[in-house]
């Protein structure tokens, strides 16, 4: 089937890309890997008169780690790169894992983490880690740059806090300290080419056997990926016994109201949030 017509523009600088995006606001789409752009355009989920490709813009494929700033993932850094990078596996294995469980080898060779969050599917596998670990989203607009905390980035299904003419240039995930561990667990029926029924990410900080800080994030249970502060509150200040973890898992379950769809019923999703929150916290603990 032929794609609807559009004009393709390979922007050579961020400034040019932002200007074009603003000029053609509502009629232009930004392209990186294109794997989540071409199928919906073919299905007429959305249309675009202009497709602005970022791939010729130098420097956007950055992947670096700084002891203070953390892991910086550029807009063009592919999921395949994240999955295989020794740096990511060492500094933030949960991020490498979340990249690996997305779609297929072919999709990951082109698709990017930044594209994954910009498309803002409620079930996207990249967001829970970013929420649990308090990532920052670096944005370039026509008038300059700004930083959006990931907690404020998702507004709805396929809707983000990006304003007309704005492009995400990178995502920065703060470094995990010695006493901090993180994990992401995806629950899906198939090992490949499947969306998450639910996803749970956790980050915990332990001092002398007591949890001093925690964050739990959930995917595919609301219109956006969400944090579950009630679950984290059950963990903080306590020794993480099975009983405490059970209570946190229950709180996670009670803090979401997912929908029923082709993948699972609302009730099943809630139950699985309970099970996988437990597993995610335990997987963090196993890393100490």
């Amino acid at each position, binding site marked *: *089937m032929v794609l609807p017509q*559009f*004009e393709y523009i390979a922007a050579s600088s961020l400034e040019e890309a932002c200007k074009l995006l603003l000029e053609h606001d509502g009629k232009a789409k930004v*392209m990186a890997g*294109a794997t989540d752009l*071409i199928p919906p355009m073919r299905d007429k989920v959305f249309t675009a008169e202009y497709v602005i490709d970022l791939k010729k813009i130098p420097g956007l494929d950055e992947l670096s780690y700084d002891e203070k700033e953390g892991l910086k993932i550029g807009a063009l850094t592919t999921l395949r790169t994240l999955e295989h990078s020794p740096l990511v596996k060492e500094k933030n294995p949960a991020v490498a894992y979340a990249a690996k469980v997305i779609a297929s*080898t*072919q999709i990951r*060779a*082109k698709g990017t983490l930044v594209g994954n969050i910009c498309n803002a599917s409620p079930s996207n596998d990249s967001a829970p880690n970013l929420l649990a670990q308090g990532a920052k989203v670096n944005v370039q607009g026509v008038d300059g740059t700004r930083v959006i905390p990931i907690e404020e980035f998702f507004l709805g299904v396929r809707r983000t806090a990006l304003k007309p003419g704005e492009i995400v240039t990178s995502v920065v995930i703060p470094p995990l300290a010695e006493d901090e561990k993180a994990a992401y667990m995806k629950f899906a029926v198939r090992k490949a080419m499947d969306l998450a029924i639910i996803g749970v990410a956790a980050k915990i900080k332990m001092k002398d056997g007591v949890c001093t800080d925690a964050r739990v994030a959930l995917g595919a249970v609301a219109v956006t990926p969400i944090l579950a502060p009630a679950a984290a509150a059950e963990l903080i200040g306590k020794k993480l016994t099975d009983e405490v973890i059970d209570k946190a898992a229950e709180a996670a379950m009670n803090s979401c109201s997912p929908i029923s769809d082709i993948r699972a019923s609302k009730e099943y999703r809630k139950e699985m949030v309970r099970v996988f929150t437990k597993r995610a916290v335990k997987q963090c603990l196993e890393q100490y």
Partner: protein
Amino acid sequence: MHKSMINLTINGDEVDAVVKDNLTLLDFLRDQLGLTGTKKGCEEGECGACTVLLDGLPVNSCCTLAVECNGREVTTIEGLARNGQLTPLQRQFIDKWALQCGYCTPGMIMSATALLNTNHHPTELEIREAIEGNLCRCTGYAKIVEAIQAAAAEMNWEEA
């Protein structure tokens, strides 16, 4: 109708072409260049029948624009055999009966070629992960995995 001039390398040959901006790499290969070895299946990145190598990495050519490949290198199933000589992987697909209807085969072979190019000693799990984006509705995958294992063993034997 928006069109662009592109210059790319396909199976080792430099190609200049004028393409419509909305033309996928898949349709460019099949309809404009006549390289019909690359198959069209789902057209939404699910089945892997259209897998080609883009700068050495396996991608779905249905989810790639032709114009996006300007300046890049594409390898299709037609680019594997040299002087009529099949690659060990292609021959093992025949020897091990790793195909029935054959529609998924070019995509399977491209995914497996990408794997063997970087990993000469893949485990069974690594093989299954490499073809996770390639659907086969006939074989049940067992013979495909065997063929890839046999090709890897043959390459290792050649290295020794």
